């Protein structure tokens, strides 16, 4: 049958046409097209990679930020705690000192009061003695302004001695 018998002419034409088409398209179409597609794919991949990297960096950055924040928070807490302690210590120190000072003042005051009192008492004693002497002097003077009385006294005294 003619249908399944190859014709040399058509075979030759097909071969020649396909060969020419193959070389022309390979050189002027397939190579630039495939090259450019590959380049585009590479650039897309690169873009995706860099986007991924950027996201990772962002995540790292965020983690760092979080860490920093945490650290700062902790530091703040520590500082606050310390400050509170210092405050409390200061308050307690101050009150202690104040107590001490007050006690010392009170003691000093008591001391001076005691010495003043002693001095006053001594002075009063001396004054009283002087006054007593003056009074006694005046009384004696008044009692012994005549001879009789002086004699009487002497007698009394002598009596006392006798008694002794």
């Amino acid at each position: 049958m003619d249908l399944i018998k190859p014709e040399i002419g058509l075979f030759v034409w097909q071969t020649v046409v396909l060969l020419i088409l193959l070389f022309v398209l390979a050189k002027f179409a397939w190579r630039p097209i495939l090259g450019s597609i590959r380049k585009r794919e590479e650039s897309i991949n690169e873009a995706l990679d860099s986007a991924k990297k950027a996201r990772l960096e962002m995540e790292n950055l965020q983690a760092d930020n979080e860490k920093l924040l945490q650290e700062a928070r902790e530091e703040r807490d520590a500082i606050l705690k310390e400050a509170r302690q210092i405050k409390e210590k200061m308050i307690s120190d101050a009150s202690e000192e104040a107590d001490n000072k007050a006690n010392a003042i009170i003691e000093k005051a008591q001391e001076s009061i005691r010495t003043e009192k002693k001095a006053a008492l001594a002075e009063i004693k001396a004054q009283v003695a002087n006054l007593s002497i003056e009074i006694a002097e005046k009384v004696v003077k008044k009692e012994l302004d005549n001879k009789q009385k002086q004699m009487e006294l002497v007698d009394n005294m002598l009596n006392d001695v006798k008694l002794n």
Partner: protein
Amino acid sequence: MHRIFEERKLSRANMRTTYLSFKLLVVLTLGLFVHPFTSFAQEGDSESEEAFNATDMIMHHISDAHSWHFFGSGEDAAVLPLPVILYTDDGLVSFMSSEFHHDVEAKHVVEKDGKRFVNYHEKIYQLNEGEETVEFNAEHYPANAERPLDLSITKNVAAMFLTVIVMLVFFFSLAKHHKKNEKAPRGLNNALESLVLFVRDDIAIPQIGEKKYMKFMPFLLTVFFFIWITNLLGLLPGAANVTGNISVTVSLGMFTLILIVVNGNRDYWKHIFWMPGIPTFVKPILAVVEVLGLIIKPVALMIRLFANITAGHIIILSLLGLIFILEHVGVAGISVPFAFFIMILELLVAFLQAFIFTMLSALFIGMAVQEHEHH
């Protein structure tokens, strides 16, 4: 007549350039396929003895020819004359096919450079020295004529050129886009690019492998698009049945075979001629089987493509031919929807066959270049 034909050709060209919807295209295809039948029918009326012969009609449509017949018959037919190029014993002889005046019964003798030629069922015969007319032997073959080497631009060759032009226009435009900018193209170029990527990612890389596929990409792409576009153009009304011609598919299969033979590595040949790992006495037997397999692979390729495309054309023509065999217009009510359905199926087959041919070529090449891991 030529003027009329020119006008018709122009109007057809315009039709091609304007964007036709898919539906319109199919309807038009079916409509124009009916044309030859109407002409046959008219002929039948005027010459009652010449009855409608479905086999002749179908063979006329699926076979190659020296002129491109569109529609009509006799002197009114719209025919594109094509150059006849013959390589005779005395060198090349060339003339236009119109010099045969539509004769395919070896009645009209063309005389050129002192040699006489006739067209007998689209085969050119050169009459022996001194012969004036063709005489036929008992098997209805010309007895006093020889066939010279026929390198004519036949209908199929012309259709092939059309495919080449379409491919060059399409892919030069795509290449131009790619040279200019790096972004993805739009429209037709985008569709073409996704097909190029389809061939690369779904055919070449899985079958041949990431390392070696690039070397075979030009062949696979060219063959894929050549077969597909030719198949699609073959579905147009009045078009040639290029990929359904055994000469064409033989050539395509030869390309695959040559690529396998040239690129087959040592391992591949070793597995063909001296299969390792089997008893020695089996090795020669297997070598014969493997060598046969090497040849059968591309032969299967060429037969598959030829048979599928030709079968599709025959089915459509047969369904429509039923109308004229049964001589009732009512049959068209069944035939036309059936033919329409087959036509749509053919659109799928056009792609499928291109895909299968490329896929199997890639598979066979992949087997030949594969690096075996020795255990």
